[in-house]
Protein backbone atom coordinates (compact mmCIF):
# COMPACT_ATOMS: atom_id res chain seq x y z
CA UNK A 1 0.00 0.00 0.00
CA UNK A 2 2.57 2.51 1.13
CA UNK A 3 5.02 1.36 -1.49
CA UNK A 4 2.41 1.84 -4.15
CA UNK A 5 1.58 5.34 -3.07
CA UNK A 6 5.28 6.17 -3.02
CA UNK A 7 5.54 4.75 -6.52
CA UNK A 8 2.73 6.89 -7.72
CA UNK A 9 4.27 9.92 -6.09
CA UNK A 10 7.54 9.15 -7.81
CA UNK A 11 5.82 8.76 -11.14
CA UNK A 12 4.46 12.23 -10.65
CA UNK A 13 7.91 13.66 -10.04
CA UNK A 14 8.04 13.98 -13.78
CA UNK A 15 5.05 16.30 -13.65
CA UNK A 16 6.69 18.72 -11.30
CA UNK A 17 6.34 22.31 -12.28
CA UNK A 18 7.78 25.51 -10.89
CA UNK A 19 5.25 27.77 -9.24
CA UNK A 20 5.04 30.51 -6.69
CA UNK A 21 2.59 30.22 -3.82
CA UNK A 22 0.11 32.63 -5.33
CA UNK A 23 -0.03 30.60 -8.54
CA UNK A 24 -0.31 27.37 -6.62
CA UNK A 25 -3.34 28.82 -4.85
CA UNK A 26 -4.94 29.81 -8.13
CA UNK A 27 -4.22 26.39 -9.61
CA UNK A 28 -5.88 24.67 -6.67
CA UNK A 29 -8.90 26.88 -7.02
CA UNK A 30 -9.08 26.07 -10.71
CA UNK A 31 -8.68 22.35 -10.08
CA UNK A 32 -11.56 22.21 -7.58
CA UNK A 33 -13.74 23.99 -10.16
CA UNK A 34 -15.07 26.84 -8.03
CA UNK A 35 -18.27 28.56 -9.11
CA UNK A 36 -17.84 32.02 -7.62
CA UNK A 37 -14.86 34.06 -6.47
CA UNK A 38 -14.90 37.58 -5.08
CA UNK A 39 -11.48 39.05 -4.52
CA UNK A 40 -10.15 42.52 -3.82
CA UNK A 41 -6.49 43.03 -4.66
CA UNK A 42 -4.02 43.54 -1.84
CA UNK A 43 -0.29 42.94 -1.65
CA UNK A 44 1.03 40.24 -1.49
CA UNK A 45 -2.10 38.31 -2.52
CA UNK A 46 -3.11 40.24 -5.65
CA UNK A 47 -1.51 37.73 -8.03
CA UNK A 48 -4.08 35.15 -6.94
CA UNK A 49 -6.87 37.41 -8.15
CA UNK A 50 -4.97 38.12 -11.37
CA UNK A 51 -4.33 34.48 -12.10
CA UNK A 52 -7.90 33.35 -11.39
CA UNK A 53 -9.30 36.08 -13.61
CA UNK A 54 -6.84 35.11 -16.31
CA UNK A 55 -8.00 31.48 -16.06
CA UNK A 56 -11.59 32.59 -16.46
CA UNK A 57 -10.64 34.85 -19.37
CA UNK A 58 -8.96 32.06 -21.29
CA UNK A 59 -11.65 29.50 -20.53
CA UNK A 60 -9.66 27.28 -18.17
CA UNK A 61 -12.10 27.93 -15.34
CA UNK A 62 -15.86 28.34 -15.56
CA UNK A 63 -16.63 30.68 -12.68
CA UNK A 64 -18.07 34.06 -11.89
CA UNK A 65 -15.39 36.36 -10.58
CA UNK A 66 -16.76 39.42 -8.82
CA UNK A 67 -14.27 42.29 -8.82
CA UNK A 68 -15.62 43.69 -5.57
CA UNK A 69 -14.97 47.18 -4.25
CA UNK A 70 -13.45 46.03 -0.98
CA UNK A 71 -12.72 43.03 1.21
CA UNK A 72 -15.81 43.46 3.33
CA UNK A 73 -17.83 43.02 0.19
CA UNK A 74 -15.59 40.18 -0.98
CA UNK A 75 -16.38 38.15 2.13
CA UNK A 76 -20.04 39.19 2.02
CA UNK A 77 -20.40 38.14 -1.60
CA UNK A 78 -18.78 34.73 -1.13
CA UNK A 79 -20.85 33.97 1.97
CA UNK A 80 -23.97 34.84 -0.01
CA UNK A 81 -22.83 32.79 -3.01
CA UNK A 82 -22.07 29.83 -0.75
CA UNK A 83 -25.52 30.19 0.79
CA UNK A 84 -26.90 29.94 -2.75
CA UNK A 85 -25.11 26.62 -3.16
CA UNK A 86 -22.00 27.68 -5.03
CA UNK A 87 -18.44 26.50 -4.39
CA UNK A 88 -16.66 29.72 -3.51
CA UNK A 89 -13.25 31.24 -2.98
CA UNK A 90 -11.67 34.47 -1.84
CA UNK A 91 -8.19 35.58 -0.90
CA UNK A 92 -6.79 38.41 1.13
CA UNK A 93 -4.00 39.71 3.35
CA UNK A 94 -3.45 41.95 6.32
CA UNK A 95 -5.70 45.03 6.29
CA UNK A 96 -8.03 43.23 3.94
CA UNK A 97 -8.57 40.47 6.46
CA UNK A 98 -9.16 43.05 9.17
CA UNK A 99 -11.61 44.84 6.92
CA UNK A 100 -13.64 41.66 6.50
CA UNK A 101 -13.36 40.80 10.18
CA UNK A 102 -17.03 41.29 10.98
CA UNK A 103 -18.00 38.98 8.14
CA UNK A 104 -15.65 36.23 9.32
CA UNK A 105 -17.93 35.63 12.27
CA UNK A 106 -20.97 35.68 10.02
CA UNK A 107 -19.43 33.11 7.65
CA UNK A 108 -18.87 30.67 10.49
CA UNK A 109 -22.07 31.58 12.31
CA UNK A 110 -24.06 30.86 9.17
CA UNK A 111 -22.03 27.66 8.68
CA UNK A 112 -21.05 28.50 5.12
CA UNK A 113 -18.25 26.45 3.52
CA UNK A 114 -16.26 29.46 2.36
CA UNK A 115 -12.63 28.81 1.49
CA UNK A 116 -10.11 31.64 1.73
CA UNK A 117 -6.40 31.94 1.09
CA UNK A 118 -4.52 34.39 3.28
CA UNK A 119 -1.13 35.62 2.14
CA UNK A 120 -0.04 36.46 5.68
CA UNK A 121 1.20 39.98 6.26
CA UNK A 122 1.79 42.45 9.06
CA UNK A 123 -0.82 44.97 10.15
CA UNK A 124 -0.63 48.76 10.10
CA UNK A 125 0.48 51.04 11.69
CA UNK A 126 3.12 51.57 10.57
CA UNK A 127 2.13 50.33 7.16
CA UNK A 128 4.03 47.20 6.29
CA UNK A 129 3.46 44.85 3.38
CA UNK A 130 5.82 42.10 4.53
CA UNK A 131 5.26 38.79 6.19
CA UNK A 132 4.23 37.98 9.69
CA UNK A 133 1.17 36.30 11.21
CA UNK A 134 -0.51 39.29 12.83
CA UNK A 135 -3.40 39.24 10.38
CA UNK A 136 -4.33 35.59 10.70
CA UNK A 137 -3.83 35.64 14.47
CA UNK A 138 -6.49 38.34 14.57
CA UNK A 139 -9.01 35.85 13.20
CA UNK A 140 -8.16 33.00 15.52
CA UNK A 141 -11.38 33.24 17.52
CA UNK A 142 -13.74 33.76 14.59
CA UNK A 143 -14.86 30.16 14.28
CA UNK A 144 -12.90 29.34 11.13
CA UNK A 145 -10.80 26.29 10.52
CA UNK A 146 -7.30 27.68 9.95
CA UNK A 147 -4.62 25.67 8.17
CA UNK A 148 -1.04 26.91 7.84
CA UNK A 149 1.11 25.98 4.84
CA UNK A 150 4.85 25.47 4.98
CA UNK A 151 5.66 25.11 1.29
CA UNK A 152 4.18 26.02 -2.08
CA UNK A 153 3.14 22.39 -2.41
CA UNK A 154 1.26 22.63 0.86
CA UNK A 155 -0.55 25.74 -0.31
CA UNK A 156 -1.92 23.72 -3.20
CA UNK A 157 -2.63 20.57 -1.21
CA UNK A 158 -4.16 22.42 1.74
CA UNK A 159 -6.52 24.40 -0.45
CA UNK A 160 -7.78 21.25 -2.13
CA UNK A 161 -8.28 19.60 1.26
CA UNK A 162 -10.00 22.77 2.46
CA UNK A 163 -12.89 22.11 0.08
CA UNK A 164 -13.15 18.51 1.22
CA UNK A 165 -13.34 19.71 4.82
CA UNK A 166 -15.46 22.84 4.50
CA UNK A 167 -18.21 21.19 2.46
CA UNK A 168 -18.24 17.95 4.43
CA UNK A 169 -21.75 17.32 5.81
CA UNK A 170 -20.33 16.92 9.32
CA UNK A 171 -18.42 20.19 9.18
CA UNK A 172 -19.97 23.00 7.12
CA UNK A 173 -17.55 25.62 8.34
CA UNK A 174 -15.33 28.13 6.56
CA UNK A 175 -11.67 27.23 6.09
CA UNK A 176 -8.71 29.58 5.76
CA UNK A 177 -5.42 28.41 4.27
CA UNK A 178 -2.35 30.56 4.80
CA UNK A 179 0.63 31.18 2.61
CA UNK A 180 3.37 33.31 4.11
CA UNK A 181 3.40 36.66 2.35
CA UNK A 182 6.33 36.78 -0.13
CA UNK A 183 8.04 33.86 1.58
CA UNK A 184 5.53 31.55 -0.09
CA UNK A 185 3.33 33.86 -2.12
CA UNK A 186 6.22 35.13 -4.26
CA UNK A 187 8.65 32.25 -4.00
CA UNK A 188 9.01 29.82 -6.89
CA UNK A 189 9.35 26.22 -5.78
CA UNK A 190 8.67 22.78 -7.20
CA UNK A 191 4.99 21.93 -7.30
CA UNK A 192 3.33 18.68 -8.26
CA UNK A 193 -0.16 19.53 -9.35
CA UNK A 194 -2.75 16.77 -9.44
CA UNK A 195 -4.70 16.08 -12.61
CA UNK A 196 -7.94 18.02 -12.41
CA UNK A 197 -10.20 14.99 -12.79
CA UNK A 198 -8.52 13.40 -9.79
CA UNK A 199 -8.83 16.56 -7.73
CA UNK A 200 -12.51 16.71 -8.53
CA UNK A 201 -12.97 13.08 -7.60
CA UNK A 202 -11.31 13.77 -4.27
CA UNK A 203 -12.96 17.10 -3.47
CA UNK A 204 -16.16 16.05 -5.20
CA UNK A 205 -19.01 18.48 -5.53
CA UNK A 206 -22.00 17.25 -3.60
CA UNK A 207 -25.50 17.20 -5.02
CA UNK A 208 -27.38 20.47 -4.55
CA UNK A 209 -29.66 20.24 -1.60
CA UNK A 210 -27.46 18.08 0.64
CA UNK A 211 -27.25 21.14 2.88
CA UNK A 212 -29.66 24.05 3.29
CA UNK A 213 -29.29 26.64 0.52
CA UNK A 214 -31.27 29.56 -0.83
CA UNK A 215 -33.73 27.81 -3.08
CA UNK A 216 -37.12 29.04 -4.31
CA UNK A 217 -38.41 25.47 -4.22
CA UNK A 218 -37.53 25.10 -0.56
CA UNK A 219 -37.56 28.59 0.91
CA UNK A 220 -35.67 29.09 4.14
CA UNK A 221 -34.68 32.14 6.11
CA UNK A 222 -30.93 32.54 6.70
CA UNK A 223 -29.41 34.99 9.12
CA UNK A 224 -32.27 35.41 11.56
CA UNK A 225 -32.43 37.23 14.86
CA UNK A 226 -31.51 34.89 17.69
CA UNK A 227 -32.67 36.28 20.97
CA UNK A 228 -31.34 35.50 24.45
CA UNK A 229 -33.46 32.34 24.44
CA UNK A 230 -31.65 30.75 21.48
CA UNK A 231 -28.44 32.61 20.65
CA UNK A 232 -26.41 30.71 23.25
CA UNK A 233 -27.48 27.31 21.92
CA UNK A 234 -26.73 28.39 18.34
CA UNK A 235 -23.20 29.43 19.30
CA UNK A 236 -22.44 26.29 21.28
CA UNK A 237 -23.75 24.21 18.41
CA UNK A 238 -21.30 26.05 16.14
CA UNK A 239 -18.41 25.59 18.55
CA UNK A 240 -19.05 21.87 18.81
CA UNK A 241 -18.99 21.59 15.03
CA UNK A 242 -15.56 23.20 15.05
CA UNK A 243 -14.41 21.07 17.97
CA UNK A 244 -15.47 17.89 16.16
CA UNK A 245 -13.98 18.92 12.81
CA UNK A 246 -10.54 17.28 13.30
CA UNK A 247 -12.14 13.92 12.62
CA UNK A 248 -12.98 15.12 9.11
CA UNK A 249 -9.73 17.06 8.74
CA UNK A 250 -7.82 13.84 9.45
CA UNK A 251 -10.10 11.86 7.15
CA UNK A 252 -9.43 14.42 4.40
CA UNK A 253 -5.69 13.98 4.96
CA UNK A 254 -5.87 10.16 4.95
CA UNK A 255 -7.91 10.13 1.78
CA UNK A 256 -5.50 12.62 0.23
CA UNK A 257 -2.51 10.46 1.08
CA UNK A 258 -4.22 7.36 -0.26
CA UNK A 259 -4.83 9.00 -3.60
CA UNK A 260 -1.88 11.35 -4.01
CA UNK A 261 0.80 10.02 -1.70
CA UNK A 262 1.48 13.09 0.39
CA UNK A 263 0.89 12.79 4.13
CA UNK A 264 -0.61 15.47 6.34
CA UNK A 265 -1.69 15.63 9.97
CA UNK A 266 -3.00 18.17 12.42
CA UNK A 267 0.59 18.71 13.46
CA UNK A 268 3.93 17.63 12.04
CA UNK A 269 6.64 16.35 14.32
CA UNK A 270 10.24 16.76 13.19
CA UNK A 271 12.94 14.82 14.99
CA UNK A 272 10.75 14.56 18.06
CA UNK A 273 11.35 10.88 18.92
CA UNK A 274 14.27 11.61 21.22
CA UNK A 275 14.11 15.40 21.39
CA UNK A 276 15.13 17.13 24.59
CA UNK A 277 14.24 20.63 23.48
CA UNK A 278 11.50 21.53 21.03
CA UNK A 279 10.24 24.63 19.32
CA UNK A 280 6.65 24.90 18.20
CA UNK A 281 6.13 26.95 15.05
CA UNK A 282 3.84 27.64 12.14
CA UNK A 283 3.81 28.10 8.39
CA UNK A 284 6.90 28.62 6.27
CA UNK A 285 8.82 29.57 9.40
CA UNK A 286 8.77 25.86 10.23
CA UNK A 287 11.23 25.24 7.36
CA UNK A 288 13.77 27.47 9.05
CA UNK A 289 13.22 25.72 12.36
CA UNK A 290 13.78 22.35 10.66
CA UNK A 291 17.00 23.68 9.16
CA UNK A 292 18.07 24.79 12.63
CA UNK A 293 17.21 21.36 14.04
CA UNK A 294 19.37 19.75 11.33
CA UNK A 295 22.27 22.01 12.21
CA UNK A 296 21.93 21.30 15.93
CA UNK A 297 21.64 17.56 15.38
CA UNK A 298 25.00 17.74 13.58
CA UNK A 299 26.38 19.27 16.78
CA UNK A 300 24.81 16.46 18.78
CA UNK A 301 22.00 18.52 20.28
CA UNK A 302 18.75 16.59 20.55
CA UNK A 303 16.54 19.27 19.10
CA UNK A 304 13.07 18.72 17.66
CA UNK A 305 10.26 20.72 16.18
CA UNK A 306 6.48 20.62 16.27
CA UNK A 307 4.72 22.35 13.40
CA UNK A 308 1.10 23.29 13.89
CA UNK A 309 -0.60 22.66 10.56
CA UNK A 310 -4.17 23.00 11.75
CA UNK A 311 -4.12 26.01 14.01
CA UNK A 312 -7.89 26.15 14.56
CA UNK A 313 -9.33 24.09 16.04
CA UNK A 314 -6.13 23.90 18.06
CA UNK A 315 -4.83 20.31 18.24
CA UNK A 316 -4.20 20.53 21.96
CA UNK A 317 -4.19 16.78 22.57
CA UNK A 318 -1.62 16.11 19.81
CA UNK A 319 0.58 19.02 20.84
CA UNK A 320 0.58 17.92 24.46
CA UNK A 321 1.44 14.38 23.47
CA UNK A 322 4.26 15.49 21.19
CA UNK A 323 5.80 17.65 23.92
CA UNK A 324 5.24 15.24 26.79
CA UNK A 325 8.82 14.05 27.02
CA UNK A 326 10.94 17.08 26.21
CA UNK A 327 12.82 19.03 28.84
CA UNK A 328 11.94 22.49 27.59
CA UNK A 329 9.46 23.96 25.12
CA UNK A 330 9.88 27.09 23.04
CA UNK A 331 7.19 28.66 20.92
CA UNK A 332 8.16 30.84 17.97
CA UNK A 333 5.57 33.48 17.19
CA UNK A 334 5.55 36.01 14.34
CA UNK A 335 2.82 38.13 15.87
CA UNK A 336 2.03 39.88 19.11
CA UNK A 337 -0.93 39.43 21.37
CA UNK A 338 -0.57 42.91 22.79
CA UNK A 339 -0.94 43.06 26.53
CA UNK A 340 -1.53 39.35 27.01
CA UNK A 341 -0.02 37.43 29.91
CA UNK A 342 2.67 36.41 27.44
CA UNK A 343 2.67 38.20 24.11
CA UNK A 344 3.09 35.24 21.77
CA UNK A 345 -0.37 34.17 20.59
CA UNK A 346 0.70 30.65 19.66
CA UNK A 347 2.47 30.40 23.00
CA UNK A 348 -0.83 31.06 24.77
CA UNK A 349 -2.40 28.10 22.98
CA UNK A 350 0.50 25.77 23.59
CA UNK A 351 0.85 26.65 27.26
CA UNK A 352 -2.90 26.24 27.83
CA UNK A 353 -2.86 22.88 26.04
CA UNK A 354 -0.12 21.66 28.36
CA UNK A 355 -1.41 23.25 31.56
CA UNK A 356 -4.92 21.77 31.42
CA UNK A 357 -3.34 18.35 31.04
CA UNK A 358 -1.17 18.84 34.06
CA UNK A 359 2.00 18.90 31.96
CA UNK A 360 4.42 21.45 33.30
CA UNK A 361 7.52 22.23 31.30
CA UNK A 362 9.96 25.08 31.43
CA UNK A 363 8.84 27.24 28.52
CA UNK A 364 9.89 30.25 26.52
CA UNK A 365 7.95 32.51 24.22
CA UNK A 366 10.06 33.65 21.29
CA UNK A 367 8.94 36.42 18.98
CA UNK A 368 10.80 37.19 15.78
CA UNK A 369 10.27 38.22 12.20
CA UNK A 370 7.63 40.90 12.63
CA UNK A 371 6.86 42.92 9.52
CA UNK A 372 9.13 40.89 7.27
CA UNK A 373 12.23 41.11 9.46
CA UNK A 374 14.32 38.25 8.13
CA UNK A 375 14.80 35.31 10.45
CA UNK A 376 17.94 33.35 9.81
CA UNK A 377 18.60 29.76 10.72
CA UNK A 378 21.28 30.99 13.09
CA UNK A 379 18.65 32.99 15.01
CA UNK A 380 16.61 29.85 15.56
CA UNK A 381 19.75 27.97 16.61
CA UNK A 382 20.24 30.67 19.22
CA UNK A 383 16.69 30.10 20.48
CA UNK A 384 17.40 26.40 20.88
CA UNK A 385 20.54 27.24 22.85
CA UNK A 386 18.41 29.40 25.11
CA UNK A 387 16.06 26.45 25.54
CA UNK A 388 18.93 24.17 26.54
CA UNK A 389 19.73 26.71 29.20
CA UNK A 390 16.15 26.82 30.37
CA UNK A 391 16.01 23.03 30.44
CA UNK A 392 18.96 23.07 32.76
CA UNK A 393 17.62 25.67 35.16
CA UNK A 394 14.09 24.31 34.92
CA UNK A 395 12.72 27.85 35.04
CA UNK A 396 10.38 29.26 32.40
CA UNK A 397 10.90 32.68 30.90
CA UNK A 398 8.04 34.73 32.35
CA UNK A 399 8.24 37.35 29.60
CA UNK A 400 8.24 37.07 25.83
CA UNK A 401 11.73 37.18 24.34
CA UNK A 402 12.10 39.46 21.35
CA UNK A 403 14.75 38.09 19.01
CA UNK A 404 16.28 40.24 16.31
CA UNK A 405 14.92 43.50 17.65
CA UNK A 406 17.35 46.39 17.93
CA UNK A 407 17.24 47.68 21.45
CA UNK A 408 19.41 49.02 24.23
CA UNK A 409 17.34 46.92 26.62
CA UNK A 410 17.96 43.23 27.02
CA UNK A 411 14.81 41.81 25.48
CA UNK A 412 16.04 38.27 25.01
Amino acid at each position, binding site marked *: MEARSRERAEAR*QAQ*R*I*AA*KGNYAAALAVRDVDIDVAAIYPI*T*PQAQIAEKITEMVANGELDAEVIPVEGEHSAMSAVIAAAATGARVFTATSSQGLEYMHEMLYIASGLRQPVVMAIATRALSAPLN*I*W*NDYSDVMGMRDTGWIIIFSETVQEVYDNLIQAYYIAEHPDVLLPVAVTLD*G*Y*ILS*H*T*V*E*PLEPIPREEVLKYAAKRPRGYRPVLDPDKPMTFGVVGGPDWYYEAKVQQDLALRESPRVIEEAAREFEKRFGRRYGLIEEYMMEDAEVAIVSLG*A*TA*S*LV*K*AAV*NRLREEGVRAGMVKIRVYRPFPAEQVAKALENVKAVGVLDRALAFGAAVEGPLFLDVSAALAVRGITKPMASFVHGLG*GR*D*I*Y*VKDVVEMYKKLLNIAETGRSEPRTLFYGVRSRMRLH
Partner: protein
Amino acid sequence: MTRVEIRFHGRGGQGAVTAAEVLAAAAIREGKYAMAFPEYGAERRGAPVLAFVRIDDKVILEREPVLEPDIVVVLDPSLVPSIYMRGLKPSGLTVINTKKSPEEAAEFIRSHGLNPPRCVATVDATSIALKHLGAPIVNTSMLGALARASKVVELDSLEHSIEEYFEDKPRIIEPNLRAVEEAYSSTEVVCL
Protein backbone atom coordinates in the same frame (compact mmCIF):
# COMPACT_ATOMS: atom_id res chain seq x y z
CA MET B 1 25.62 18.50 -6.79
CA THR B 2 25.85 20.55 -3.66
CA ARG B 3 23.90 23.67 -2.83
CA VAL B 4 24.32 26.61 -5.22
CA GLU B 5 23.14 30.04 -4.16
CA ILE B 6 22.73 32.76 -6.74
CA ARG B 7 21.97 36.44 -6.46
CA PHE B 8 20.71 38.57 -9.34
CA HIS B 9 21.27 42.33 -9.43
CA GLY B 10 19.26 44.52 -11.74
CA ARG B 11 16.96 47.47 -11.90
CA GLY B 12 13.19 47.33 -11.72
CA GLY B 13 11.94 46.61 -15.23
CA GLN B 14 15.00 44.69 -16.43
CA GLY B 15 13.57 41.36 -15.41
CA ALA B 16 15.92 40.24 -12.64
CA VAL B 17 13.02 38.60 -10.81
CA THR B 18 11.87 36.85 -13.98
CA ALA B 19 15.42 35.65 -14.58
CA ALA B 20 15.53 34.11 -11.11
CA GLU B 21 12.17 32.43 -11.61
CA VAL B 22 13.06 31.04 -15.03
CA LEU B 23 16.35 29.73 -13.70
CA ALA B 24 14.62 27.97 -10.79
CA ALA B 25 12.05 26.52 -13.16
CA ALA B 26 14.85 25.15 -15.36
CA ALA B 27 16.49 23.51 -12.37
CA ILE B 28 13.16 22.05 -11.25
CA ARG B 29 12.68 20.73 -14.78
CA GLU B 30 15.97 18.88 -14.33
CA GLY B 31 14.56 17.20 -11.23
CA LYS B 32 16.39 19.36 -8.75
CA TYR B 33 15.00 21.34 -5.87
CA ALA B 34 15.07 25.05 -6.38
CA MET B 35 13.73 28.17 -4.77
CA ALA B 36 13.53 31.62 -6.38
CA PHE B 37 12.38 34.71 -4.59
CA PRO B 38 12.74 38.44 -4.97
CA GLU B 39 13.94 40.86 -2.39
CA TYR B 40 10.45 41.27 -1.06
CA GLY B 41 8.51 44.44 -1.56
CA ALA B 42 6.95 46.59 -4.17
CA GLU B 43 9.07 46.68 -7.28
CA ARG B 44 9.53 50.13 -8.73
CA ARG B 45 10.84 50.73 -12.22
CA GLY B 46 14.45 51.85 -12.21
CA ALA B 47 15.16 51.07 -8.57
CA PRO B 48 17.96 48.56 -7.88
CA VAL B 49 16.41 45.13 -7.26
CA LEU B 50 17.64 41.79 -6.02
CA ALA B 51 16.44 38.29 -6.65
CA PHE B 52 17.71 35.05 -5.17
CA VAL B 53 17.91 31.44 -6.31
CA ARG B 54 18.89 28.34 -4.41
CA ILE B 55 19.43 25.05 -6.23
CA ASP B 56 20.06 21.72 -4.54
CA ASP B 57 19.54 17.99 -4.92
CA LYS B 58 17.83 17.92 -1.55
CA VAL B 59 14.81 19.73 -0.13
CA ILE B 60 15.68 23.32 0.66
CA LEU B 61 14.64 24.46 4.11
CA GLU B 62 16.56 27.71 4.39
CA ARG B 63 13.95 30.36 3.75
CA GLU B 64 16.33 33.23 4.40
CA PRO B 65 17.98 35.74 2.08
CA VAL B 66 21.18 34.62 0.38
CA LEU B 67 23.99 36.40 2.22
CA GLU B 68 27.00 34.59 0.74
CA PRO B 69 26.17 33.70 -2.84
CA ASP B 70 28.21 31.34 -4.95
CA ILE B 71 27.23 33.25 -8.06
CA VAL B 72 26.29 36.86 -8.66
CA VAL B 73 24.62 37.87 -11.92
CA VAL B 74 24.79 41.57 -12.75
CA LEU B 75 22.15 42.66 -15.25
CA ASP B 76 22.98 46.34 -15.28
CA PRO B 77 26.47 47.59 -16.25
CA SER B 78 25.93 50.77 -14.26
CA LEU B 79 25.76 48.97 -10.90
CA VAL B 80 28.88 49.40 -8.82
CA PRO B 81 31.01 46.47 -7.55
CA SER B 82 30.58 47.52 -3.93
CA ILE B 83 26.91 46.52 -4.28
CA TYR B 84 27.11 43.30 -6.23
CA MET B 85 30.32 41.96 -4.71
CA ARG B 86 28.81 42.00 -1.22
CA GLY B 87 29.18 38.55 0.38
CA LEU B 88 30.21 36.83 -2.86
CA LYS B 89 32.34 33.82 -2.02
CA PRO B 90 36.00 34.18 -3.12
CA SER B 91 35.65 30.80 -4.81
CA GLY B 92 32.57 32.01 -6.64
CA LEU B 93 31.61 33.44 -10.00
CA THR B 94 30.24 36.70 -11.20
CA VAL B 95 28.52 37.07 -14.55
CA ILE B 96 28.41 40.68 -15.67
CA ASN B 97 26.57 42.39 -18.49
CA THR B 98 29.34 44.55 -19.99
CA LYS B 99 31.28 45.23 -23.15
CA LYS B 100 34.43 44.60 -21.12
CA SER B 101 36.43 41.38 -21.28
CA PRO B 102 36.54 39.27 -18.11
CA GLU B 103 40.06 40.54 -17.43
CA GLU B 104 38.95 44.14 -17.80
CA ALA B 105 35.96 43.49 -15.57
CA ALA B 106 38.20 41.92 -12.91
CA GLU B 107 40.47 44.92 -13.14
CA PHE B 108 37.45 47.20 -12.76
CA ILE B 109 36.47 45.37 -9.57
CA ARG B 110 40.01 45.67 -8.29
CA SER B 111 39.96 49.40 -9.07
CA HIS B 112 37.16 49.64 -6.51
CA GLY B 113 39.42 48.12 -3.88
CA LEU B 114 37.76 44.70 -4.02
CA ASN B 115 38.99 41.25 -4.90
CA PRO B 116 37.23 39.67 -7.86
CA PRO B 117 36.03 36.11 -7.33
CA ARG B 118 37.81 33.11 -8.80
CA CYS B 119 35.77 33.25 -12.00
CA VAL B 120 34.57 36.26 -13.91
CA ALA B 121 32.35 36.02 -16.99
CA THR B 122 31.23 38.85 -19.21
CA VAL B 123 28.75 39.22 -22.01
CA ASP B 124 27.43 42.24 -23.92
CA ALA B 125 23.85 41.36 -23.08
CA THR B 126 22.52 44.85 -23.78
CA SER B 127 23.62 44.71 -27.42
CA ILE B 128 22.30 41.16 -27.75
CA ALA B 129 18.94 42.09 -26.26
CA LEU B 130 18.65 45.20 -28.44
CA LYS B 131 19.47 43.13 -31.50
CA HIS B 132 16.96 40.35 -30.89
CA LEU B 133 14.27 41.95 -28.74
CA GLY B 134 14.56 45.56 -29.77
CA ALA B 135 14.69 46.52 -26.12
CA PRO B 136 17.39 46.36 -23.44
CA ILE B 137 15.66 43.61 -21.51
CA VAL B 138 18.66 41.49 -20.71
CA ASN B 139 17.31 38.87 -18.36
CA THR B 140 17.13 35.98 -20.81
CA SER B 141 20.51 36.83 -22.34
CA MET B 142 22.04 36.85 -18.89
CA LEU B 143 20.59 33.41 -18.22
CA GLY B 144 22.30 32.18 -21.40
CA ALA B 145 25.55 33.64 -20.13
CA LEU B 146 25.03 32.08 -16.70
CA ALA B 147 24.38 28.66 -18.24
CA ARG B 148 27.60 28.96 -20.19
CA ALA B 149 29.70 30.20 -17.29
CA SER B 150 28.37 27.99 -14.50
CA LYS B 151 26.61 24.89 -15.78
CA VAL B 152 24.02 25.22 -12.97
CA VAL B 153 21.45 24.31 -15.58
CA GLU B 154 21.59 22.96 -19.10
CA LEU B 155 20.94 25.34 -21.97
CA ASP B 156 18.18 23.02 -23.14
CA SER B 157 16.20 23.13 -19.90
CA LEU B 158 16.67 26.88 -19.76
CA GLU B 159 15.14 27.19 -23.21
CA HIS B 160 12.26 24.95 -22.21
CA SER B 161 11.59 27.14 -19.22
CA ILE B 162 11.66 30.29 -21.31
CA GLU B 163 9.14 28.79 -23.70
CA GLU B 164 6.93 27.89 -20.79
CA TYR B 165 7.30 31.22 -19.08
CA PHE B 166 6.32 33.18 -22.18
CA GLU B 167 3.61 30.70 -23.17
CA ASP B 168 0.97 33.42 -23.33
CA LYS B 169 3.24 35.76 -25.35
CA PRO B 170 4.31 33.43 -28.19
CA ARG B 171 5.60 36.34 -30.28
CA ILE B 172 8.56 36.91 -28.01
CA ILE B 173 9.63 33.32 -27.49
CA GLU B 174 11.76 33.03 -30.63
CA PRO B 175 13.63 36.34 -30.18
CA ASN B 176 14.37 35.43 -26.58
CA LEU B 177 15.70 32.02 -27.53
CA ARG B 178 17.95 33.61 -30.15
CA ALA B 179 19.18 36.05 -27.51
CA VAL B 180 19.89 33.21 -25.09
CA GLU B 181 21.84 31.31 -27.69
CA GLU B 182 23.90 34.26 -28.83
CA ALA B 183 24.66 35.15 -25.21
CA TYR B 184 25.57 31.53 -24.50
CA SER B 185 28.03 31.40 -27.35
CA SER B 186 29.53 34.85 -26.88
CA THR B 187 30.11 34.72 -23.12
CA GLU B 188 33.75 34.84 -22.08
CA VAL B 189 34.83 33.19 -18.85
CA VAL B 190 38.15 33.54 -17.08
CA CYS B 191 38.99 31.59 -13.94
CA LEU B 192 42.08 32.26 -11.92
